[in-house]
């Protein structure tokens, strides 16, 4: 649980995001929504990397799979009702995480990285090469999901501001939920496994079971993020499940500071924000076309100078202020 100062800083960040739809046009609302949704995705990966000691390189499998399931269950001429579409997406993702996790959490270290990567690539090529959902071209979700009770539409994710606020509330609720889980016995056990798995076995914990449950929770939350992400543009493509997407999530976790939950969210916001900045021709001229070079330098600088990432920096600054008081 972060200190009160850190929580205040996070609250300011949330408020700053919350005003985006009031002052920005659709482009900025979409960008802010992507930041939040990828923040949820990165936060779910942090549960594995930062708290369970499982470095997954295939986390995008669940992110993309959920988006594809949304495409498959959405009618072509009407919006899918979230009341059942969301549980279906999460259910399929959780099941996939259970199967993939059951086989991969037996392995450790670099083998775990390889096995998760291999499973994610299998799913990538499944959607890339099959005609099920548009193959390599991807597929559209023509009508974005709604939450309807009978004929009354309560929430329509087709509205960009609605989708934004829905995502923001989801982020806050999921963050609070994960903080709760990490304070509960389950959370303490997985953190013990991260520090010393063998000792946990000697204490009598079936570490395989706890790692698997953690993997399924993280995969399901990634699926939730994938559901929202597919709703932003109403489009899914195999790249959502690819290793680049898994890699970007890892970069967000490391950039933001692993083992903090909020850090990876800051990492996601920073990565997308900085990309936006570096692509600005007015600021960076001809280099803007090669913004990836600048981005690489930025990530390297953060990792070199702030070992605990941007989240760690925030904790440090907030801590210093509380000392001064």
């Amino acid at each position: 649980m972060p200190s009160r100062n850190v929580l205040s800083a996070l609250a300011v960040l949330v408020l700053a995001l919350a005003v985006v739809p009031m002052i920005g046009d659709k482009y900025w609302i979409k960008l802010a929504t992507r930041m939040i949704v990828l923040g949820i995705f990165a936060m779910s990966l942090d549960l594995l990397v930062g708290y369970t000691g499982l470095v997954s390189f295939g986390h995008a499998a669940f992110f993309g799979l959920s988006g594809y399931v949304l495409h498959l269950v959405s009618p072509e001429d009407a919006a899918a009702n979230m009341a059942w579409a969301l549980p279906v997406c999460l259910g399929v993702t959780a099941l996939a995480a259970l199967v993939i996790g059951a086989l991969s959490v037996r392995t450790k270290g670099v083998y775990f990285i390889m096995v998760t990567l291999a499973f994610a690539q299998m799913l990538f090529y499944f959607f890339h090469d099959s005609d099920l959902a548009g193959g390599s071209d991807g597929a559209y979700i023509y009508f974005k999901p709604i939450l309807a009770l009978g004929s009354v539409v309560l929430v329509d994710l087709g509205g960009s501001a609605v989708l934004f606020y829905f995502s923001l509330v989801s982020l806050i609720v999921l963050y609070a939920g994960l903080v709760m889980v990490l304070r509960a016995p389950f959370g303490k056990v997985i953190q013990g496994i991260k520090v010393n798995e063998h000792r946990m076995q000697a204490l009598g914990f079936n570490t395989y079971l706890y790692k698997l449950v953690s993997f399924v929770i993280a995969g399901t939350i990634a699926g939730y993020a994938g559901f929202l992400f597919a709703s932003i543009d109403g489009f899914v493509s195999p790249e959502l499940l690819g290793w680049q997407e898994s890699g970007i999530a890892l970069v967000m976790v490391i950039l933001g500071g692993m083992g903090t939950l909020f850090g990876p969210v800051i990492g996601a916001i920073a990565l997308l924000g900085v990309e936006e900045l570096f692509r600005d021709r007015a600021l960076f001229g001809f280099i803007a076309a090669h913004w990836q070079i600048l981005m690489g330098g930025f990530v390297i600088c953060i990792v070199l100078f702030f070992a605990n990432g941007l989240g760690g920096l925030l904790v440090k600054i907030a801590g210093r202020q509380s000392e001064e008081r």
Partner: protein
Amino acid sequence: MSAPILSATGLSKNFGGLNAVDNVDLSCALDTVHAIIGPNGAGKTTLINLLSGDLAPSSGEITYRDRDITALPAHRVSRLGIGRSYQRTHIFPEFTCWQNCWLAAQSREPSSLRFFRPANAALAVRQRTEQALATAGLDSRADTIAATVSYGEQRQLEIAMLLAMEPDVLLLDEPLAGMGPEESVQVVELIRRITPGYAVVLIEHDMDAVFAVADVLTVMVDGVVLESGVPEMVRQSTGVREAYLGVGAAAADTGCEL
């Protein structure tokens, strides 16, 4: 002496061509300390690893309370009530002493798949944690990060974690290893104090400590049991004397007087 609650018969473990443990019989009863001594490489730690389920024996049988536990994995053995400590400190260095013990106490709950109430809300687990810390004399260190307490205190913490698991068999693998004389005396006192109610298997090189606490003494050399019985009897055994003298100067230097 009461009936044994943990016993091994014909226990062997081969690593390739090496018989690390060779046809060992061993039993341990409540309220007694069964000490195992022997030169380095005698197979003592391997024997503990077999009893705790960390290693699967090549042959032989382990029985705990009339139940065959030979093939059980370590976490199942631990849950039954057989706790072990390690020769090299094996704790959670980044956590506080309290958190170390809490994990040990929590391990006795039927399940830790609990996601809602905060961990320290469970009163029984908290009490076990605090009691174990108090017994091991670490109450004042409860909120200190384990990596920063003294080496001797880390060894005490290992024992506190064992106690928090509420086992009835304690497998102690060189609890005094690397300790100064004063710390050793404290831990020997601790072992003596907690023995009632437990069956203790103790591996130790410190002969003063062994003779101070052991009710039964087993001497192992090259994986086999050379002698086993009451400490006084073992002390007189000519075979043991020869074995220890045969080990050479190393044993004499460490002050092994049998």
